[in-house]
């Protein structure tokens, strides 16, 4: 899958992902009303990833039906990423998303860039519970890395989350030494890509070791090996974001083919054999 935030802001970009071969399209995080996002600079390309502060720019939840129609017309599932400021807001977003016909909901509980959105640790449980109470579709909780990631993941799982998505981007900053200012308009942004890959692997490992739950791994997948790392740490599924920037849409095929060859060479008959293999 793509990770939320990469393309899928409308039906046209979502179809680009379908053509790239993703197994499901994860939408841009949608809010109750459209958001313009921040003025540029909103992205700092780095050798080791991306630093972004897009500001949750999105066309609003009302637009979702157009994306769903287009993608499901190609027989690909749609995961709606929703971003609310409170459990009540998450529930309202979930209601709209389910009406639009999505196949799963991913709750963005951890975007580092937007002050007025995001419920962080305390309300993780309430937000997941509020959405689960109205959803017959799977509900995933997308979390950021923290030292007590097991505790946060536990709150989401206790509330009924069907899976946790680990990890979101990490708060970070770059400063332009000639301007004497942070480069991004928002000053700080979310760091993604290879720089955070070891943290993503560790987060997946810790949570899988604690709960043996369903996990979607994300963070620095740029080739088949980084995907296999997340799977062996405990992830059942993998999302790619910065990898699309670093390698283009061909990365999906590259990862799938590389994974297939690795499994064949090592004698694994199914993905299930390697999920959590590294966890003892």
């Amino acid at each position, binding site marked *: 899958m793509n990770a939320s935030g*990469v393309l899928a802001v*409308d039906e046209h*970009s979502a179809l680009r992902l379908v053509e790239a071969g993703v197994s499901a399209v994860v939408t841009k995080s949608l809010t109750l009303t459209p958001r313009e*996002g921040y003025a540029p600079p*909103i*992205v700092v390309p780095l050798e080791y990833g991306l630093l972004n502060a897009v500001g949750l*720019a999105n066309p609003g939840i009302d637009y979702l039906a157009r994306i769903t129609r287009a993608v499901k017309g190609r027989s690909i599932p749609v995961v709606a990423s929703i971003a609310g400021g409170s459990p009540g807001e998450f529930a309202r977003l979930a209601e709209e998303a389910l009406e639009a016909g999505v196949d799963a909901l991913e709750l963005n509980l951890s975007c580092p860039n937007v002050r007025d959105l995001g419920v962080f640790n305390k309300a993780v449980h309430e937000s997941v519970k509020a959405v689960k109470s109205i959803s017959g579709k799977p509900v995933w909780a997308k979390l950021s890395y923290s030292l007590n990631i097991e505790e946060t993941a536990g709150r989401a799982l206790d509330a009924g989350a069907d899976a946790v998505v680990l990890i979101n981007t990490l708060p970070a900053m770059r400063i*332009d030494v000639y*301007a004497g200012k942070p480069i991004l308009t928002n000053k700080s942004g979310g760091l993604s890509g290879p720089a955070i890959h070891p943290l993503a692997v560790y987060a997946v490992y810790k949570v899988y070791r604690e709960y043996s739950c369903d996990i979607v791994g994300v963070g620095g997948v740029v080739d088949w090996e980084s995907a296999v790392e997340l799977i062996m740490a405990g992830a059942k599924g993998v999302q790619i974001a910065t990898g699309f920037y670093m390698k283009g849409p061909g990365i999906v095929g590259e990862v799938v083919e590389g994974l297939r060859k690795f499994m064949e060479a090592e004698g694994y008959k199914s993905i299930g054999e390697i999920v959590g293999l590294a966890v003892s």
Partner: protein
Amino acid sequence: MSVAGFKGSRLDLLVKPVGDTTRRLVELGAGGRLGLYGPLGRPLIPPGRRFLFVAGGSGLAPILYYLDYLECGVRSVCEVAVGFNKSVEAGSAGRLVEEKGGRPVVYCLDTGCDEKGVALDHLKRVDPGSYDALVLSGPSEMINSSPRFLAREYWGRVIVVAEALVKCGLGLCGSCRLPWNPGLYLCVDGPGFHLTQLLGVV
């Protein structure tokens, strides 16, 4: 922002001071610092040796670079129709085109330019079939209108240099998707497109 010229360590930008960034650019003096990210997009070079360029206002910027690249006046014959609302805005547009080996025709809605009207009017004064390629560069309204000024048989010869607000520049955020064909992103697919691609015709 389009590059109007690039030689050695010198980069030329042509801007109209209408917003925060363009006003600051115009105010910058020698010794000032400018942060740049790019180049974005992919090149689209018109084929042949005989060209007509039609530019609206600061859409002239990428045309100037084309004139350099195509060695106009030396290897290629380049006619440039450039339009402005008022003659006072035209400034030294004609001279810039001539310096790059092009043959300028300046259009304004008031008097004081070579011709009265819009730059697209030039398409009705010439034989489009006598050019190997036609290049249009300007605001969306101008591009939208262009099919009305040109018989369909010539649409296949037209390249459009589009304009859009670019935010991420990486083809990820969707900010610069084109109004005529939202599946296309200016920052990675453009800025040059075939007119037929934009209109979705074969």
